[in-house]
């Protein structure tokens, strides 16, 4: 069993690299305005879009205007999505006659989709009309991913550029992300999904007789189109409540396999984009390998824990898993969905073994950098790289620098903010939830497992993951609002400081290549992996001890 699992994982990684490598190069060309093989088709569309929106694609701005555009764009996104949910009952494409969404749920959802989190406090089929799903959710699925990619390429430009203030044009980056990358990939992917049995229709919900003779309502909808971008854009917000464990979203092992590849591929490609834009492909590989190492360490622990099962039962831990996926696919899916900030699920994370669950939480707690969310994952990893190079620089007796740019107090302030704010927000809200009736009344389980449910929810929010542990009724004003704040902090406390760093680095000179410390070797990779793990562990060790670790020890001590 282990051997076949190992073989599958190795094969999976090889396929991932084969897909990510050319995609990364492709993105580098797209975002540096070079000709790509799709240009003949897309370039006219791009020009047309700039003309109608009045965008001058040659005009770039400094980081302040760039950030301002980004914030305005997202603020408008939140407001529109919020209102759309409140008035969906009077709008068309609502065959089930679903009513207006409660305000706190609507706000949470609006923030959630704009922040690329796709935390869902609601069940999709019982809450959102087709119009809301398509115009609101799917639209944000595209643009929130595009925003993430825009931030990543802008961050990369900060390293590449020398002595200039301009870091890019937000509207151009946004447009290119969507029309050159997300749309073409989504079209291909949804066609694939439809071919494998994922549904795409506007039918009212079907009524069916079960074998027992009862009536069952089977929800329908334009699933495939939303599913594709949900996966590719590491959004994760399912059309249905059951998300990717629902047969209409993820019918077979083959769709499961490609969904996992789907949410990893853009994030895994971005390190290569980085290497290409930096004109130092070895550096891109170094970042990729760092991420991969973290990914494999986590996966090993999770698989080990899950294959050992529960000693009290003495069976494979199949609870909460789909039989068509089994242990391996469920764990790989769960590990991948939490290490990218996708958040789609094909199994109940609540039912994983405690240590597996701990790995999934840890993936989110370290800020979604193991490939991570599209764009922001790379940015987060590069922030860790800044921290690592700061320490390495000091330890070799040089003013710390990264990829030729000197790290000064300003960059350190911003990097530290990215590092600590999301952690602080999840710790504080988690503490609030676990010590007040507002928070505790939503729990289904007491003891350490209940604590895990709370920790998972806020890790998911602040990490912009959006997957749920289940077992926690999060559709209350308390959780809706605290999670909305956590999602905002997790998203914008990463994006805004990162853009300021990009702006500051772009203005700096670059030190000559020959005088730089090599940052693509194994020493760099080991250091950055150690920094990520140690910083994460030091922050979350105490709560993990009384959550999943205590639960694990209880099961294994009293089970044997």
């Amino acid at each position: 069993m282990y051997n076949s699992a190992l073989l599958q994982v190795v094969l999976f990684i090889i396929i991932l690299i084969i897909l990510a490598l050319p995609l990364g190069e492709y993105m580098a060309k797209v975002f540096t305005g070079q000709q790509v093989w799709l240009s003949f088709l897309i370039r006219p569309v791009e020009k047309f879009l700039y003309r109608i929106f009045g965008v001058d694609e040659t005009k770039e701005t400094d980081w302040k205007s760039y950030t301002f555009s980004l914030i305005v764009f997202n603020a408008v996104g939140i407001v529109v999505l919020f209102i759309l949910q409140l008035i969906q009952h009077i709008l068309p494409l609502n065959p089930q006659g679903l009513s207006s969404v409660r305000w706190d749920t609507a706000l949470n959802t609006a923030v959630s989709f704009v922040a690329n989190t796709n935390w869902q406090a609601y069940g999709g089929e019982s809450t959102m009309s087709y119009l809301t799903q398509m115009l609101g959710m799917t639209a944000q699925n595209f643009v929130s991913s595009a925003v993430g990619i825009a931030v990543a390429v802008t961050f990369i430009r900060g390293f590449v550029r020398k002595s200039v203030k301009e870091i890019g044009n937000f509207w151009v980056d946004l447009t290119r992300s969507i029309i050159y990358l997300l749309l073409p990939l989504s079209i291909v992917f949804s066609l694939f999904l439809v071919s494998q049995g994922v549904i795409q229709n506007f039918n009212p919900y079907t009524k069916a007789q079960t074998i027992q003779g009862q009536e069952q309502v089977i929800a329908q909808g334009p699933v495939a189109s939303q599913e594709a971008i949900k996966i590719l854009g590491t959004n994760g917000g399912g059309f249905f409540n059951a998300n990717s464990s629902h047969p209409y979203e993820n019918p077979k092992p083959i769709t499961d396999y490609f969904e996992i590849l789907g949410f990893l591929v853009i994030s895994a490609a971005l390190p290569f984009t980085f290497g290409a834009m930096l004109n130092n492909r070895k550096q891109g590989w170094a970042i990729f390998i760092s991420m991969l190492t973290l990914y494999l360490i986590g996966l090993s622990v999770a698989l080990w824990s899950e294959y050992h099962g529960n000693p009290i039962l003495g069976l494979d831990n199949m609870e909460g898993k789909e039989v068509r996926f089994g242990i391996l696919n469920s764990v790989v899916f769960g590990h991948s969905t939490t290490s990218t900030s996708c958040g789609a699920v094909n199994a109940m994370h609540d039912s994983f073994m405690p240590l597996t669950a701990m790995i999934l939480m840890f993936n989110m707690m370290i800020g979604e950098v193991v490939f991570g969310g599209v764009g922001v994952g790379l940015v987060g990893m590069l922030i860790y790289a800044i921290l690592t190079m700061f320490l390495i620089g000091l330890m070799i007796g040089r003013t710390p620098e990264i990829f030729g740019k000197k790290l000064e107090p300003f960059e350190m302030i911003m990097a530290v903010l990215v590092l600590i704010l999301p952690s602080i927000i999840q710790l504080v809200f988690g503490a609030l939830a676990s010590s007040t009736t507002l928070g505790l009344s939503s729990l289904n389980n007491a003891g350490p497992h209940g604590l895990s449910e709370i920790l998972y929810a806020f890790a998911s929010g602040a990490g912009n993951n959006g997957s749920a542990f289940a077992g926690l009724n999060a559709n209350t004003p308390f959780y809706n609002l605290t999670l909305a704040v956590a999602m905002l902090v997790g998203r914008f406390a990463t994006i805004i400081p990162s853009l300021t760093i990009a702006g500051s680095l772009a203005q700096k000179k670059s030190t000559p290549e020959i005088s730089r410390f090599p940052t693509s070797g194994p020493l760099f990779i080991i250091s950055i992996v150690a920094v990520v793990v140690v910083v994460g562990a030091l922050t979350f060790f105490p709560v993990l001890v009384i959550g999943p670790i205590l639960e694990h020890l209880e099961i294994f001590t009293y089970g044997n």
Partner: protein
Amino acid sequence: METKKTIWQPKFIVRAVYDSFIKLNPLNMYRNPVMFAVEIGSILTALITVYNIIQGHPFGFNLQISLWLWFTVLFANFAEALAEGKGKAQAESLKQARSDIIAQKLLPNGDIESIPALALRKGDIALASDNHIIPSDGEIIEGVALVDESAITGESAPVVREFGGDKTGVTGGTKVLSGNIKIKITVNPGETFLDQMVGMIESAKRQKTPNEKALEILLVGLTVLFFVVVVTLNFYAGYVNVKISIPILVALLVCLMPTTIGGLLPAIGIAGMDRLMSRNVIALSGRAVEAAGDVNIVLLDKTGTITLGNRIATEFIPAPGVEEKQLARAAMLSSLADETPEGRSVVILAKEKLRMRGRDITAPEGSKFISFSAETRMSGVDINDRQIRKGATDAIKDFVKPYNKQFPKEVGYAVDRVGGEGGTPLVVCENGNVLGVVRLKDVLKHGIRERLSQLKNIGITSVMITGDNPTTAAAIAAEAGVSDFIAQARPETKLERIRKFQSEGYMVAMIGDGTNDAPALAQADVAVAMNAGTQAAREAANMVDLDSTPTKLLDIVEIGKQILITRGALTTFSVANDVAKYFAIIPALFAVQYPILNTLNVMRLSSPQSAILSAVIFNAIIIPFLIPLSLKGVQCKQDSPMSLLIRNLFIYGLGGLILPFIGIKLIDMIIH
């Protein structure tokens, strides 16, 4: 010199112990945010202990925690005070001496007014003569004096300072041994060299360098993060029905906070400056010292830096049919009245060749000396009808023309050869007979080759700047082993070159002494002025080399690197330590309620209380254990960056991970 002695003397230690209490003043502590946080924690736990005593509750454990937290702060203060010790003592004695000085201020109307030295302002003129202390920094505008600079340099040999040339600068606090000078004061009170020197070593006045600020931001960030971790842990513990007392929470926080590096951070910087001073370099900017580790290129003046100031004669090359002795004698006679260093060196070489001693040489009766002029470009002597001349090739060719004598082509070849080898040929003739060539040569300073190759080893490209023609320059460059040279340089060439290098991203160091170096010094990232140089050069520089040895850069680079490495190593160590502390404290907090969590008590510490105390004690006493390291600096000589990193990661990263497990276990065994 005082600073060359060790710091571990009773007088410094007693003073440092005293100062570590004085430094508890919150108005002082807030400059070091990490330790300020520890102090607040200490106060909090002390108050709780007092409250326990008043209430009649058991207080022993809280008292112990509180005491060790106070020790943590005191140890950190002690490190800082000890680092300051030497410099402060030296600075204070200098300040004391200077505050008593009375300056003789020259008023515009010619009167002389006696005022305290501290009242002198920029632009004032002061007089100084025998046994006067020079009142402030300035430039000699009249006169010459022998100055004892030992108060600042520690060098007992007096130096000449005079008007004109490159040795006009004088420093306040030094003493005129003999001579009368008129000094134009160039700084205002509080900005003098001495004040700056004091400012670099007294922590209260010290400017934090950008690197230090950046590190402090990281440390504060971690402190804030751990504060949140500890405060929220209280609520999470409540969820699993565990109550944690405030002193224990404070103890956990202090253990997690990067107190080791936080406590030693000021000491590392101050001690670095102090080490620099003990190598006779006064840094006026901590930033420049730390930037020295990044230097890629150093610009060196040829004259006075790579070569001895003057050329000297090294060889006589006689013309065909002329004896070497004949040439030597003629050259000597023509140079007897020549007081230039070149002229004197010709005489010295000739005496060697002729095996003569000093007193045997006298100018023959009736000698008439012709001195060098720019028009004739030769000098010589007329003895009766003998006309001996030495000078540039063209000048001698012109001189022999009227005699209708051939200029031997062998001599022409010799001239070309000497020039091609980087020397300067002087042709000697007597009455139209060309006798031969004297080779004048630049002589390298002793040991310069080795020092330059060391610079190369640590990755610094040396660039020689000279006004010589390219051929000469190339020859000297090759001989000295500099990586590159710039020939026929004008004064502004230096500045242009530095700007060009900088725009390509290089960090440039410049070593200079002359007034025309000042703009280049001001532009360079690391600028070292010779103490013997002009005031302008010293003001433009950010470091002054008291020994005036141009390759001091090596020492500066080493110390700059050491400062950074020591900080980086201790930060890594400090953070790595936290892992063991968690394994000591977290099981201690929860194992009473959940005995299975004792699985995490990997050190098998005897009781929850002793576990917590052991962690706190380890956290406190690691500071004094690391004081010697932070004062001496982590060694980094001649290592490649890669091997340096591997070694430091191994010692301070891995070592920092493992050591506290052992240390905490040992302390637990002792206190239990």
